[in-house]
């Protein structure tokens, strides 16, 4: 147990170090090839006037393309319009909106996917009929359908959840199928010898066996739902979500590139939070399971 903990800490530290290294590289690149900049101000009573003119000019590293890290942070603490909340607060609301849509879609898609998986696992004929489509659909960019669904259904926020659900349910169905089948046949024989009914076998043996597979799929679906929610917001012009924010700040990119990066940061956070929530749920649901490799 203690060994696992220290490993987690090492991993977290490793992540922080890498992110830190990236930020350093970012600023070093700007130092060498960015736009000239000046730091001018008063810090704790000390006057600072620092001017730097980088020796090179690289297009990708200009203030337009790659704003200074501190400018991005600064812009989050400032309101976009007068007498409105600060950007960070706005983006946080956007994030909540998108995550609500993603969560709804995730719940719908998972429930449906699980049910479909149970049905397909039990009815061979249906399985042979439908599984090829489930598999093919994974090779199709389902996301190409999003604009049509969102615009056509005109259901506003709900259509965002629908897109998220659509992206969720395929991995869950496949995982449910594999997982339910992966149950130890001897455990099932044992249940039969105790005259247990089909539902009991499902509840007590198959579902617990499927749980690790399902959670692997949930981790993928968590991210997919967030992506689906963002993409769903685009064609519908839903300004309340992260997709809307990205579109919005994309338009103002020439004036205020920092805002787009700030929006990106929150989008990244949304994806990571969704992923971590599923990981936490997995820790709880699979506590007591034998630790093993990921049943990829």
């Amino acid at each position: 147990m203690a060994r696992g903990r220290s490993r987690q800490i090492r991993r977290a530290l490793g992540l922080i170090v890498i992110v830190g290294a990236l930020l350093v590289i970012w600023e070093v690149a700007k130092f060498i090839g960015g736009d000239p900049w000046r730091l001018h101000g008063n810090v704790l009573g000390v006057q600072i006037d620092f001017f730097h003119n980088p020796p090179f000019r690289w297009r990708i590293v200009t203030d337009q393309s790659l704003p200074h890290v501190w400018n991005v942070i600064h812009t989050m603490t400032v309101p976009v319009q007068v007498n409105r909340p600060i950007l960070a607060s706005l983006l946080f609301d956007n994030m909540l909106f998108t995550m609500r849509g993603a969560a709804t879609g995730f719940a719908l898609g998972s429930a449906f996917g699980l049910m479909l998986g149970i049905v397909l696992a039990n009815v061979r004929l249906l399985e042979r009929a439908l599984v090829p489509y489930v598999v093919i659909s994974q090779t199709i960019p389902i996301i190409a359908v999003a604009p049509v669904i969102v615009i056509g259904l005109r259901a506003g926020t709900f259509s965002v959840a629908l897109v998220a659900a659509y992206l969720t349910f395929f991995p869950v169905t496949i995982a449910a199928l594999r997982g339910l089948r992966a149950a130890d046949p001897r455990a099932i024989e044992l249940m039969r010898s105790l005259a247990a009914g089909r539902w009991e076998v499902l509840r007590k043996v198959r579902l617990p066996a499927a749980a690790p597979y399902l959670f692997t799929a949930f981790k993928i679906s968590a991210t997919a739902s967030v992506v689906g929610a963002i993409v769903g917001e685009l064609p519908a012009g839903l300004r309340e979500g992260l997709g809307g924010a990205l579109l919005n700040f994309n338009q103002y990119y020439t004036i205020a590139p920092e805002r787009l990066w700030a929006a990106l940061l929150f989008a990244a956070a949304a994806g990571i939070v969704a992923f971590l929530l599923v990981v936490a749920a997995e820790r709880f649901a699979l506590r007591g399971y034998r630790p093993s490799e990921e049943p990829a």
Partner: protein
Amino acid sequence: MAVATSTTSTRFRRGSHGIARRVRDWTPAIAVAVGFILLWQGAVQLLDIQRFVLPAPFAIGQSFVEYFPEIWAAASYTAYEAVGGLVIGVTAGLLVGLITGRWVGLRESLLPFAIAVNSVPIIAFAPIMNNWFGLANPLSKMMIAALLVFFPVMINTVRGLISVDPSALELMRSTAATDFAVLTKLRIPTALPFIFTSLKIAATLATIGAIVGEYFGAPRASLGQYIVQHAAYFDFERSWAAIILAAAIGISLYVAVLIAERLVMPWHSSVRGVE
């Protein structure tokens, strides 16, 4: 000491028995496809459903034929972006995966990082790529596709390289093989199944990257823009026709990976045909 076990190849079951079985296996699926299309067409005609989300399949077919040149042009452009992104992303993923797999220290920190970044909606980078490389430049969408593809390929390459059987490693040590020999003769062949799994995912991701990247801004003659524009004008038949081609691109790339897999790994169980 002739032991008469599995000397005959258990590979493909030839003969009429095999073909009949295959037809029987696939009939339900084909029945579903045919039935679905007929039902769809029937429902639209009988119930006179407005042509909102689901226009009649025959109407879609008509649109497809009528507007074929422009849809095909858009599809070519998008396919070019998808393939370009796939190539860039896979190459980078393999290289970084090889390097990361080699050094344990690098692996411990980079691998969790890659997994974390993979959970970020990378698609959100699309506007930035557009700004860096230019809306009209296919490279901007290629970079999104490449970014999407890079992480799964890299993660799976590393996983494959380190999933080597410890006994096999001991075997190589016993023959005093160089590190390079271990890499080429053992680690890479072991990693190939993992790599091909990620390539199958990559095929879809590249297509998605190209199309969604186009949603954020692209020349008119691209599938993403085509779909969005015509949906916005409620011209759903043309949108669906374009979606069909988008699906075709995804499937083609996937099939290309399958073919490559069969060529490179004829020995692998998933290709062997042994259940």
